[in-house]
């Protein structure tokens, strides 16, 4: 990760900007939006190690004086799925990418989806962070 940041600095103009956009190391929340409003169902289990490594890599290039950190904001990012099958497909792909099983969460979502009336959307939400780094290369 530090190597990638150094590579990026090499192709950036002096005084150019590097944006680091990614999820905060926080577990995603899953809920259902229905006619009755939003109901949170549970939290996903996922390995956040890479996120911590990425934070560490940014700190290292800042310490080395390659970039200056200028701004850091957080905001929410939603994934919206219209059907239970969409959610199942997305979850299967998520687990296939090396994440822990989400069977218990899926059961709870299936149960809530059956119970709630009217049009429903499944929403997976996570806070994202956006950091602006200024290239200090001369």
């Amino acid at each position, binding site marked *: 990760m530090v190597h990638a940041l150094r590579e990026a600095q090499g192709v950036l103009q002096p005084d*150019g900007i590097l944006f680091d956009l990614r999820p905060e190391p926080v577990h995603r929340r899953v809920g259902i939006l229905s006619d009755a409003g939003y109901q949170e169902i549970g939290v996903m289990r996922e390995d956040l190690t890479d996120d911590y490594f990425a934070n560490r890599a940014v700190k290292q290039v800042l310490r080395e004086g390659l970039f200056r950190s200028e701004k850091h904001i957080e905001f929410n990012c939603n994934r919206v799925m219209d059907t239970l099958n969409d959610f199942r497909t997305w979850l299967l792909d998520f687990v296939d990418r090396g994440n822990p099983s989400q069977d218990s969460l899926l059961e709870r979502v299936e149960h809530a989806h059956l119970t709630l009336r009217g049009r429903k959307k499944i929403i997976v939400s996570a806070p994202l962070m956006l950091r602006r780094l200024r290239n200090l290369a001369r």
Partner: protein
Amino acid sequence: MTLRIDPERNEVHALKGMADWRGKRVLEIGCGNGRLTRRIANLGTQVIAIDPDRKLITTARKELPARISERVRFRVGSAQELKYPKETFDIVVFAWSL
């Protein structure tokens, strides 16, 4: 499958608020299927977008609207080895890829 990522466009609103993008040369690293690339191009930029996954790059090329196709190039590539001359870009975006 119907999956909408960031339908509120919070990502691009956040990016837009943190730089002057018009006319800038941008490298997006980890573009995936080009979802964010299209939104960055709509800010008036010239974008080279890379991803190591050849299938996703193929999808990104297919889904690129004609009106921005002159300003966007998708390439298979990795952040570990950026094959561009020094000081090519005004802005680099690591899009969920650091």
